[in-house]
């Protein structure tokens, strides 16, 4: 046991340290400037995230263990750290547009975001129950605040409260599961637990695993622990929904990947069954519920649930192919979700934004470029080539078929068809219906840039998926 981390360990910890500095700087700027301090804080935070991303890309992806084996600095955590930074960056860009229109910009979000990301970064590197739980809360608590930060809007306050209460409840379940694991094995490190669980009481261990899962299912909004998600996603400020619907989910999937074989390898048959059921329920629930939604945010909330369901297929069919598939899909999902919620910010209605599907009418005539990007996005969300969404789904279904879960793959495919119906209600409004007059369509640079980057990424990885596969496969190899 080393009392202090050695200097070489800290090299791997640079992104987290960097983010801490970014958060502090941003907070300082926010308070130092009376006029437009919040916007400056945002710019600093965005620049900081980019620098950290650069550091991350340049720093070596070792396979070493840090802090006496509590954290792993492997390509796997590297990959997820990049995903969080991207999600955070997109959120900040969209926030600029959102608060330009809505006013009363809370500068706090610009340093809460880096802090949340630090929590997630530690969570995905963690190889120890205690640090997993602590880091889990480290990103959970600021995300409750983020959901409820827009005090002007009662919907946002409601979202924050709802998220907070249900979130703590599920954390409690998870903690109980962890305690039972510790009680059974006397170890907190993953390798120690894996060894200990091998000859522990099967039933108790299984119960512990299920409790552990409940907490994770909740955070990833998987059915049947999803009830909070549509309300929170509809109520929270749109750009923050982009973050809340992607980054915590990605973190949860990373934790899943670490613990499925790393902790509960003994129960592979059981967790595979549980995850299959959850995947099925989540896909169908999300897609069917989305069918009747008229509000774009709520529709996309259900759609993002459905996508988590597709991802759960990959967990259920965990193996060589699934590793690739899940990482590929998470990366793509972050961009898709950012653009899906972001497109609402193009439509002005009254003092705020038009959030109904019918408000999008005639967008193709007003803003053809944005409409083109949205078309690519819709194709990708549905899973139609040549987009990355298709490739991702194809890999996920391939993983399921590889493990003999042909019906699960067929159910996933069927869900793509169901989702076509509501995604192309949006497509229909944009391309085939005439403007309704009560809304103004504004081409704002931040939103257009998010849509444009997303469209490019979706096409790039849809046509040349091996670029992302290389990244995902080096990352996937070192987990689980």
């Amino acid at each position, binding site marked *: 046991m080393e009392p202090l981390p050695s200097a070489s360990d800290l090299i791997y910890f640079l992104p987290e340290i960097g983010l801490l500095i970014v958060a502090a700087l941003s907070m300082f700027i926010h308070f130092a400037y009376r006029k437009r301090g919040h916007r400056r804080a945002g710019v600093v935070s965005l620049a900081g995230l980019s620098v950290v991303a650069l550091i991350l890309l340049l720093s070596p992806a070792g396979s070493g263990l840090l802090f006496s084996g509590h954290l792993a600095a492997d390509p796997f955590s590297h990959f997820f750290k990049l995903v969080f930074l991207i999600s955070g960056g997109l959120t900040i860009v969209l926030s600029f547009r959102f608060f330009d229109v809505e006013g009363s910009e809370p500068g706090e979000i610009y340093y809460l975001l880096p802090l949340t990301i630090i929590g997630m970064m530690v969570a995905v590197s963690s190889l120890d129950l205690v640090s997993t739980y602590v880091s889990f809360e480290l990103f959970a608590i600021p995300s409750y605040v983020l959901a409820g930060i827009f005090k002007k809007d009662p919907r946002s306050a409601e979202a924050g409260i709802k998220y907070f209460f249900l979130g703590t409840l599920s954390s409690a379940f998870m903690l109980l599961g962890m305690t039972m694991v510790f009680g059974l094995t006397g170890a907190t490190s993953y390798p120690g637990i894996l060894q200990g669980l091998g000859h522990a009481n099967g039933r108790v261990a299984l119960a512990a695993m299920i409790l552990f899962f409940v907490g994770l299912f909740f955070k990833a909004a998987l059915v049947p622990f999803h009830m909070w998600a549509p309300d929170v996603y509809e109520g929270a400020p749109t750009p923050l929904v982009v973050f809340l619907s992607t980054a915590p989910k990605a973190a949860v999937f990373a934790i899943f990947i670490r613990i499925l074989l790393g902790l509960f390898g003994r129960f592979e048959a059981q967790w595979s069954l549980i995850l299959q059921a959850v995947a099925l329920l989540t896909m169908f629930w999300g897609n069917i519920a989305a069918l009747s939604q008229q509000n774009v945010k709520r529709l996309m909330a259900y759609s993002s649930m459905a996508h988590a369901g597709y991802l759960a297929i990959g967990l259920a069919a965990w193996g060589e192919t699934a590793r*690739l598939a899940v990482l590929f899909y998470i990366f793509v999902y972050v961009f898709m979700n950012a653009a899906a919620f972001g497109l609402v910010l193009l439509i002005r209605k009254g003092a705020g934004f038009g959030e109904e599907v019918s408000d999008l009418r005639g967008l*193709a005539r007003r803003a053809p470029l944005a409409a083109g990007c949205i078309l690519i996005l819709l*194709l990708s969300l549905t899973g*139609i*080539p*040549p987009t990355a969404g*298709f*490739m991702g789904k*194809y*890999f996920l*279904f*391939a993983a399921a*078929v*590889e493990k003999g879960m*042909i019906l699960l*793959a*067929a159910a996933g*495919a*069927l869900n*793509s*068809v169901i989702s*076509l*119906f509501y995604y*192309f209600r949006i497509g*229909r409004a944009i*391309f*085939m219906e005439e403007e309704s007059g009560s809304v103004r369509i504004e081409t704002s640079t931040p939103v257009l840039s998010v849509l444009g980057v997303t469209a490019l990424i979706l096409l790039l990885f849809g046509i040349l*998926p*091996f670029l992302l*596969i290389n990244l995902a*496969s080096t990352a996937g190899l070192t987990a689980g």
Partner: protein
Amino acid sequence: MTVLGIPILTLIVFFPLAGVLALLLVPGQRARDLKLIANLVTGLEFLATLLILRGFNPASGDIQLIERVEWIKAFHVQYLMGIDGISLLLVLLTSLLTFIATLSSWEAVRDRLKEYYTFLLFLEVGMIGVFVSLDFILFYVFWEVMLVPMYFLIGIWGGERRLYAAIKFFLYTLFGSVMMLVAILVLYYHYHTFDTLAMLASGSTLPLALQSWVFLAFFLGFAIKVPIFPFHTWLPDAHVEAPTAASVLLAGVLLKMGAYGFVRFSLPLFPEASRKFVPLLIVLALVSIVYGALVSLMQKDMKKLIAYSSVSHMGFVMLGLFTFSPLAIKGAVLQMVNHGISTGALFLIVGIVYERRHTRLIADFGGLSERLPLYAAVFLIMAMSSIGLPGLNGFIGEFMILMGTWAVNWVWAAVAATGIILGAGYMLWLYQRVMFGRLDNPANQSLKDLTVREFATFLPLLVLAFWIGIFPKPFLNIIDKPVEKIVRIVNPGYFEKVP
């Protein structure tokens, strides 16, 4: 074989994208330039597809001009293209019909031209891609890519119920294709490749139970596209609401993809399952023939009538394919081309009066032959071609199918023959009601005959109708060997009996 340093198949698949690029650079108000670019590109594309003939050996039954590049290494997906006689005919048909469809839109489409031609060109990429892809994932990509522009063509430029028809078309066909995707993945974990050539060459056949499931999943994808009864209900809606050019391509090319899928993939890759499901397929084909024809008889709308006649005609194609006799399969492949020519032309014919009168109801017309003699002549020839009058293309295909079928089972042939009789009935009755009688509707008094441009769109189709009808040999020659190869796999007994 390369043209300008680009492999020919890649060139013909992606050349329309150059047109898309050019369209995007031209401002939307310059309608004439947009039209010129689109027509030029589709015209050049047709010429480019003719270039294939230079490097193609018609005496061989093998896949030729193969292009193979590693695409997604981790999943063994390849960019694999190749062509044989069957796909060559369909590629030529596609590029010709796309050019004709583009030309026919000159006056008919006035709104949002840039998007219109962009979607048309994207559609062409997808259609040609389907016919030359030999890797299942690549095939699937083109198969799906094609749905999107068609959805928009119907949904934006279509008739009154276009929104409903467009999404119905999209949902139906996507449902069929995703089930096919799952089957493709199942195949992958059996053969460890998506390369259909390697699958054929490996010879290791799937166990019959698995083969049957995979066959049925592919069947769903292809049968919806053909469409075979009872999967046809999207077709009348889509056809009736689609703008003329989209109807032409829908009938002329998209319906062929289902039949092409059966002949290219289902028969040779799942021979045992194909044999097992012959009764099912034959019954459905016969029902399609008779049902399609009967429903056509009762239609009041010209476009709907022709749409249902497609169900009947495609039933013939399916009948020919599943008799497993070389003669009938050759007839079926030729009939795919014939149907593209005659039904494509018939949709153009309806489009022309619709453009002038904004109605397609048969009852609104009558006696048109007085005012429009040239139009009447073109209509007559194409109606006869669709009925199967000797001397025109339809006869050759139907006759070969019936001959081949008769040798296998005379009852099937007899039932199918009633379809021909009914076909003559609905087509002649349609012609009679629209063209003959008295020109008593005052709105029709001032109708104008075909313009030069309109006649030019029909000219290639007329030439082909007579060419295939009188001298089909060049067409039959290039499909002879490929068909024989397929029959050897799916029906090996045939060549043992008849040396």
